């Protein structure tokens, strides 16, 4: 099953299970969503549960907050993560903080799904990776699945969660395929997954770069280097134990992500490891991430600003050298 179908499957099952689940967003009805995640849902659930909206990101996210506060479980599709700048206020000042500010009187069970990343020539306003912003907000949870099965299981868990969840997809993952359990499938938030076992170094990654890291690990194996690939899956809450126990085993760590390096979530991981597992490290914790530039349009330029498989291989080799 494709990644986008797996997401659609989770939505369909949760909407069947719970009438309070609704979907809101742009182009999600007849068109089925910019990446065909909601394809077929309009026909099944009708326009009151698949609510196609005008282009009003702040209003839509805010309406989801209000709906979540009063008993619905809305799932918002924000077409591109780059548009988050229009809706941050409702997400950060309201959704994330309502429970705390109200002394526990409220809960805000909403999901904001969106997608980011490069790879389709969409240039600087349609290709960002902004997970670090959301992880820096107390009150949000942040989920970034790399595989179709995790996409389904984590979206299910996110919809059932009583807190606001930012669910981040990657535009190049939608047409990746994988085995997906049929029927209900739940992957709990906050659990990392060791996607490949190894002993020589740990590669920590999330979202699409897990796949690139796995490719790199396969190449490294040819050269006799056994890389362990830890897929975080959920950035908040973070599975600190999984990271640290892998690093304590391999003694070397490479953190790989697509977002720009400066203040990326990789800094959180690398400094966490440096703080908590300093004496276990045989080499400096290393980050491999995007260059500090907006994303360029031209194909060859776009590929030059985010880590590719060979960059991962090279960095890993330097680390174990």
């Amino acid at each position, binding site marked *: 099953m494709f990644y986008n179908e797996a997401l659609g499957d989770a939505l369909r099952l949760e909407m069947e299970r719970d009438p309070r689940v609704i979907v809101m967003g742009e182009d999600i009805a007849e068109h089925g969503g910019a990446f065909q995640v909601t394809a077929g849902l309009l026909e099944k659930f009708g326009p009151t*549960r698949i609510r196609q909206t005008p282009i009003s990101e702040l209003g839509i996210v805010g309406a*989801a907050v209000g709906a979540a506060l*009063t008993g619905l479980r809305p799932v918002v599709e924000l077409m591109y993560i780059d548009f988050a700048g229009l809706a941050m206020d409702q997400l950060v000042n309201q959704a994330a903080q309502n*429970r705390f500010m*109200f002394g526990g009187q409220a809960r805000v069970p909403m999901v904001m799904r969106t997608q980011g990343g490069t790879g389709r020539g969409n240039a600087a306003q349609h290709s960002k990776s902004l997970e670090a912003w959301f992880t820096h907000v107390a009150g949000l949870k942040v989920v970034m699945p790399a595989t179709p099965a995790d996409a389904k299981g984590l979206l299910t868990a996110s919809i059932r969660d009583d807190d606001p969840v930012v669910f981040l997809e990657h535009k190049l993952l939608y047409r990746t395929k994988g085995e997906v359990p049929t029927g209900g499938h739940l992957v709990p938030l906050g659990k990392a997954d060791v996607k490949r076992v190894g002993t020589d170094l740990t590669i920590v990654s999330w979202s699409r770069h897990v796949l690139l890291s796995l490719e790199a690990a396969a190449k490294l194996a040819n050269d006799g280097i056994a890389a362990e690939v830890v897929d975080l899956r959920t950035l908040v809450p973070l599975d600190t134990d999984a990271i640290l126990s892998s690093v304590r085993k391999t003694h070397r760590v490479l953190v790989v992500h697509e977002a720009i390096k400066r203040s990326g979530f990789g800094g959180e991981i690398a400094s966490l490891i440096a703080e908590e597992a300093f004496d276990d490290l045989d080499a400096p914790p290393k980050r491999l991430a995007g260059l500090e530039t907006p994303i360029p349009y031209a194909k060859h330029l776009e590929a030059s600003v985010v880590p590719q498989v060979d960059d991962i291989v090279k960095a890993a080799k330097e680390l174990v050298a």
Partner: protein
Amino acid sequence: MDRKTALDLYRVMRRIRDFEERSTVLFGEGKVWGTIHSYTGEEAIAVGVSAHLRDDDWITSTHRGHGHCIAKRADLGKMYAELLGRETGYCRGRGGSMHIADTSKGNLGANGIVGGGIPIATGAALTAKQLGTDQVAVSFFGDGAANQGGFHESANLAALWKLPVIYVCEVNQYAESLPVERGFPIKDIEKRAEGYGIPGVRVNGLDVREVYEASGTLIERARRGEGPSFLVAYAYRHEGHYYGDPRKYQTKDQIEGWKQKYDPLVDARRWIVADKLATEAELDAIDAEVIEEAKRAVAFAEESPLASPITLPGDVYASH
């Protein structure tokens, strides 16, 4: 207007006036900190509108939120306790004046973001529509907030989806130091409703009877499924924007004179007596009751324990 309604409205207005005066004193004494924004002068708006609301109807409020909260029948003790940072406060001392919420009465919270409540009320109205109930949502906000993009987006969405929400714009003549005529290129803010094809109604926000009447019609309309509306109530902010505002942007007459001239409570007393709905003495008795009740509420707050330490992640996350 019948005697009971008139006296109920008067009592709640007085309760708000008293709360604002009393919390100002507590602020001066250093017992309340942060910032407080007085609703004095605008009582008729919250009270006139909320009289039509049930406990299961929702409101969103603003930084100037005490009045809405009281009009929506909040417990005064818990309000004072919140201002005093006590564990018994509505938000367990975590929110303070700018975030008091009372979800048991449908108050989805004061809001520190100007215009922040508007999309939220719209979403609450969506819940009512989606679940097929006859609940309504009211969003109170200031003239300044009407220039936020979120108002535009929300009004459009609500009109498209015929949501049961009433947008109540409280024109108190200022957005902080900006006079309303320097914030708007038009005189009649209610005209903006036409851009969304919804009713726009102007009322004298100093006269609780007018507010009561106009909002009743709009709320009933929303309950019947006829969609959103825009109520613009013109009034006057008696105090500075916040406690301590030096008010450099106002004339002496505006600061001293206007407060005397435009007072919904003085007005209410006048017509209640003139219409023979009650005597001055009866109104004085209500005032006295309000004072007693307030004193008990403050005492409750002052006797309450300080807010308990922050617990993480429990104070922040519901599922963990």
